[in-house]
């Protein structure tokens, strides 16, 4: 047997390093394949050819001809997943939250559709390598704050520079839609949910911007170039998504009005903590939801204590297309816990494969890149993850190999190195 039949190996890759390995035609045999679309192949053959998936099938009754591959990897008992997708996150746009010099995710100004996260995405960022290690291979680098914070881009977590890492540039514009209520701190009442007295004003302001931008984009000749308006063009012509960040049911109803009024072709609700209350409306209008982290507390004392954990199940039940994301406190660092957020939803009614879909295929569908990534299906990018155990459960998530577009991913990071360094120092196992 001249061809390599590799057992496993994290350490092989660690030792050899990414750059040296250039396999083109690899077969993974006998692994438990979690396709990402809800189905499982208990014993699978997955073949990748250069950057694409060539074959996905069951090994049952299959006679393999090893000669046709330059590498065959036996992953019996292990689990194969599509590379997980981390949506709506500032990962790659900062290193340490408290250090201003490292923060590159929120620009000054209120309406900034022309701001692009793409070019601030740092492939040598400190946090990114720790995220890959848990099976997350893509991130939607997303700008924050302002009424319109700018446009996000979808990045692979491997690459020499942003040009190399980008999967889809400027996939959508992020709108922090006005809210009817906001949290207010006062000496007298403490923290309260106060009504936004400028709500109508803010809505009108926003509508006016959309109308102006649309007018501009419909004109063929411009005496002055307006780069903010230009940046909106793809939202109007349907090339880009419009990500509308909102949590409260009534706010979302208002956003649905807005979407219909301005004929937004590809709207996405981001956040959606109360989306379950109006799931029928979302379904009717075919609006998908990027659901905020379920490791979160209910907003009100009176709510069901587990309501946030149940959100994915409630949307699934009502056939609303959704994915999970982690916006919030320490979100970049928390990205590595994305699979466990999905896993936690399983305890509250979601099936394991639907949980997986919520961080793979469904995410890709919402981002409109499902032809490229999101599931283990023929013709898609060869981006996959092999874990010795269930990737959604903390105690079994052990990613041993990963590939992005057919290239092996370096799973080492500063933390694994420090671990080895101090284990060695103390002589412990």
């Amino acid at each position: 047997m001249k061809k390599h039949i590799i057992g496993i190996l994290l350490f092989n890759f660690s030792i050899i390093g990414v750059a040296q390995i250039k396999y083109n035609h690899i077969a993974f045999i006998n692994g438990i394949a979690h396709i990402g679309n809800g189905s499982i192949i208990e014993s699978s053959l997955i073949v990748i050819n250069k950057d694409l998936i060539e074959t996905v099938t069951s090994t049952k009754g299959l006679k393999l001809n090893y000669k046709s591959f330059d590498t065959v990897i036996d992953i019996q008992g292990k689990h194969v997943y599509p590379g997980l997708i981390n949506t709506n996150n500032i990962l790659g746009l900062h290193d340490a939250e408290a250090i201003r010099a490292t923060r590159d995710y929120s620009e000054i100004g209120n309406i900034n559709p022309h701001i692009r996260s793409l070019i601030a995405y740092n492939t040598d960022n400190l946090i990114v390598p720790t995220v890959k290690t848990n099976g997350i291979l893509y991130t939607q680098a997303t700008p924050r704050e302002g009424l319109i914070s700018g446009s996000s881009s979808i990045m692979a977590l491997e690459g020499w520079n942003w040009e190399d890492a980008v999967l889809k540039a400027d996939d959508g514009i992020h709108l922090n839609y006005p809210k009817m209520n906001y949290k207010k701190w006062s000496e007298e009442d403490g923290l309260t949910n106060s009504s936004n007295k400028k709500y109508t004003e803010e809505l009108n302001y926003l509508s006016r911007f959309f109308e102006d931008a649309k007018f501009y984009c419909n004109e063929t000749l411009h005496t002055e170039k307006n780069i903010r308006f230009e940046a909106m063009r793809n939202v109007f012509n349907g090339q880009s998504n419009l990500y509308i960040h909102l949590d409260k049911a009534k706010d979302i109803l208002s956003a649905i009005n807005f979407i219909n009024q301005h004929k937004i072709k590809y709207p996405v609700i981001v956040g959606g903590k109360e989306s379950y209350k109006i799931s029928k409306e979302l379904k009717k209008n075919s609006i998908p939801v990027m659901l905020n982290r379920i490791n979160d507390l209910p907003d009100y004392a009176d709510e069901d204590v587990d309501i946030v954990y149940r959100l994915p199940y409630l949307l699934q039940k009502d056939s609303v297309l959704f994915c999970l994301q982690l916006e919030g406190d320490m979100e970049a660092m928390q990205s590595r816990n994305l699979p466990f957020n999905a896993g936690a939803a399983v305890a509250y009614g979601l099936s394991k494969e639907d949980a997986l879909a919520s961080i793979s295929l469904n995410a890709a569908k919402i981002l409109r890149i499902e032809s490229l990534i999101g599931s283990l299906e023929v013709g898609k990018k060869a981006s996959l993850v092999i874990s010795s155990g269930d990737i959604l459960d903390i105690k079994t998530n052990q990613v041993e190999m990963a590939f992005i577009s057919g290239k092996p991913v370096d799973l080492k990071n500063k933390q694994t190195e420090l671990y080895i360094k101090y284990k060695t120092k103390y002589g412990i196992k």
Partner: protein
Amino acid sequence: MHNKILLFFLCQIFIIKSFSQTTFPSNGAPFKSHTIFAFINANIYADFETLIKNGVLIIKDDKVIAIGEKQEIPKNAIIFDLKGKYIYPSFIDIFCDYGLIIPKSEKKISFGPQIESNTKGAYGWNQAIKSNVEAYKLFSHNNEQAEELKKNGVGAVLSSSKDGIVRGSGVLVNLNTQSKENNSIVIDKAAGFYSFSKGSSSQDYPSSLTGGIALLRQTCYDAIWYNKNKSEYNISLDEFNKLQSLPSIFEANDKFNSLRAAKIGEEFNIKYILKGCGNEYQRINDLQNTKLNFIIPVNFPEAIDAEDPFDSESISLTELKHWELAPSNPASLEKNGIQFCFTTAELKDKNNFLKNIRKSIKYGLSEKTALKALTFNPAFFINANKQLGALKPNYFANFFISSKPIFEDDAYIIQHWVAGESSFYSELNAPDIRGNYTLKFEKNTLLQKSYQFNFYGDLAKPSAQLIIDTTKKNIQYSFKNNLISFNFYLDSINIIRASGYYNANQKRFDGRAQIATGNWFDFELLFNSSADSIKKQQPLKTIDLNLGKVFYPFTAYGEPLNIINGTFKDEWNKFKNNSSTILIKNATVWTNTSDSVLKEHDVYVVDGKIVRIAPNIDVPKTTSVKIIDAKGKHLTPGIIDEHSHIALTSGVNEGAKASSAEVRMGDVINPDDINIYRQLSGGVTCAQLLHGSANPIGGQSVLIKLRWGHNAESMKYDKADGFIKFALGENVKQSNWGDFNTIRFPQTRMGVEQVYFDYFSRAKEYDKQYQTFLKENQKNKNLVFRRYIELEALAEILNKKRFITCHSYVQSEINMLIHLADSFGFKINTFTHILEGFKVADKMKAHGVNASTFSDWWAYKNEVMDAIPYNAAILTKMGVNTAINSDDAEMARRLNQEAAKSIKYGNLSETEALKLITLNPAKMLHIDDKVGTIEPGKVADLVLWTSHPLSVYAKVDKTMIDGQIYFDRTEDEKLREAIKIERSRIISKLIDEKQNGNKVIKAKNKLQRLYHCNTIEGIAEEETGQR
């Protein structure tokens, strides 16, 4: 009888003679009169429980000279015949700021921290101690305020400054505004005033409730010392000591703050009179146990607008229930035997005072107690019951005349006499103008010859109605001193304005009217017949209130207990169907006593303790055994969160000074925090509530069991060792607090070391001095040692009676603190966070310190850039006792998942991983003798999981503390339903309110504030960085 009256009379004359001298020169001949007034045929309340029917009240100058059923009326007395009317002693409000000109607050000098007091002069160190304020020197009459109060029956007030933690003395004054203030002051220094709020003080300390409590306690100790040792002159302490002979009034403004104040009172033997806020009914038993008196406002919440179903979701059950139950607060106080008085404080519109007291009578308060709370009690509380609060000879002539018994809805005050000075609000014998009239105009083209016109309703202020072509129009009119004016629109254009006079004998009005053209006509209004229907008075106490029960705690997921007799605990157990004996059958038991788990085992719990663990335990079939089928489920010890900030009130950081060792988190436990229940649903049974990390030496921690529903004291872990929070690194250096915070020492790690060195050196000296003092001078009462609670806490550390939990990140500072502790001969108990612990695990092991860390947090600030998720595993493998903590209300609900990360990162075994959140924290908190394992003799703090407890797929099925079930998933479902039902019930009441045209306001929508280490009260979280 006759003689007695005469004797009184003589006394009175004597007093008046000496009294009537004055120091004020008169500009022209003086007006002074000594007229005697006699009020006859009145129903007089001589005091709250004595009603004299058809009685006589005689007053002269500012005093009562006689009162009784039959009294001889002095010759020439001016007589008021009050047939059918009522006289009450004027009400007294002892929590008022009437007539005070409040001094302006001291301005802050710069944007940065203000560490020292801005008050110039020989005052104490803290601006919030304003013991020198003397209200009687700041007081002058304010007619407008006085009239407002008098119209509502209040004749005397105790007025005080509402600013600061110690607020100086208040002045008791009568509201007789026509004479000089000199004749209004009843008692110059009537009471001392206190609170927990620093008010206008611009000094940073105290910045939290814990700090306020500590400052007051330290001030008490300082004052005791100052009393005997005048080694410095200190106005604040001097005046503070003078206040101690007065009744003490404490503005607590909350049920729990009342309990907190009561505790301080116990420590210093002060019986505070507690000013509440109207939520006392929510913890009535605890307040009853204080045996203290209360001052209660009647600012019942206004109805909330609950029309929009989405919007109303954010109105909490607490707010809904409080709206419903607040008017029953006074009745609740009465039922539980608490003595209280009413105050007009907190009422935005003082005219709601009587209205709301009437409301509380409809909600069950007896009229007698209401009157007592308005007259006798306030006077008695401040030792003024020999002058005020009743109508007896020689008492102040403070009384009002009411048209009816004052607690009837349509009763109104006709006259109010204060210290003999009268105010007339309506005519004593106002003519009854009610009836059906004919309105006639002088012949003209516009107006018909006659219209029907009616006065009906209230005698005092009848409504008027005009009928034009069968259309009824309500007419605005004024009728005063027998003069009337009114106007109405004849049609859409023509307004008729009329003005005239009343002829009582002929029951008719005559006058002139002007029409839109400007022409004038005569009008007459002629009485035809008596009004047919006088609006029926709603009889008292027949309204079906249908009130909900009080929840314990007073929030969603509280339990609707009805504690009237018996203790809270009895009622709780009854309600929860709690049994003293529980048998958990066929569980997979994680005992923490061996490296494996016990499959299909039973656990037998009796009286809160684990008795036996074995397969197939047979228990005698008695009805009292609660059997839990745990087949397929896992049983673990309760989760212990070593680092938590839930269930705390008003701030976790007292960060104004480098050391705040004097503050105690145990003072500010908030048993109403919903996060207690949420964490029970995640299996947490025990949590150490820590001070924040704003300063190198933080405050004293408190260890609680999550006994949801119970009060603060009974949540505390019984006989736990004392702990204190220390902190190192960026937070104490204020590195991430912005450019203004570069003043407080220390600003570098170098300074941090010296803070400790300085404080421990001083604590050592202090302790030595104190011990010597105790040995040598205990018997000499004249010598007092200044108790310094800050250094005492540190001395306890040196004496190994208090233990340090130190917030820490970077190896250099960890190493430093170990060395520092060694040099003072004590050990650091725990390093918390300790994200670089893995770098100095060997040194930690050698020192014997525990580690309590995050599973995988990092990258939120510079000092955590080297953190690794393998930390817990390395420390454990190195033999350091290690725990995983939350420092976060959300994460605490899934500490089992966080513990599981040490399996993933660092290959700990499953049993080792579980210990990170159970046995190991128990060890570091010195409670592993009672909890942390499942073995006979241990307390039954247990969690039953639906599946493998370290799996992300596991849920908590039941959480037990002391063998009592505090969370049960099936019960939880029922509670959710109950919450829905209770909400809808009250919301439909609110909708009725709105539809009945009553005023509704927007809900306040209070939200729970979540605390982390670095949360500074009053500053938004975003501004302070994190953790």
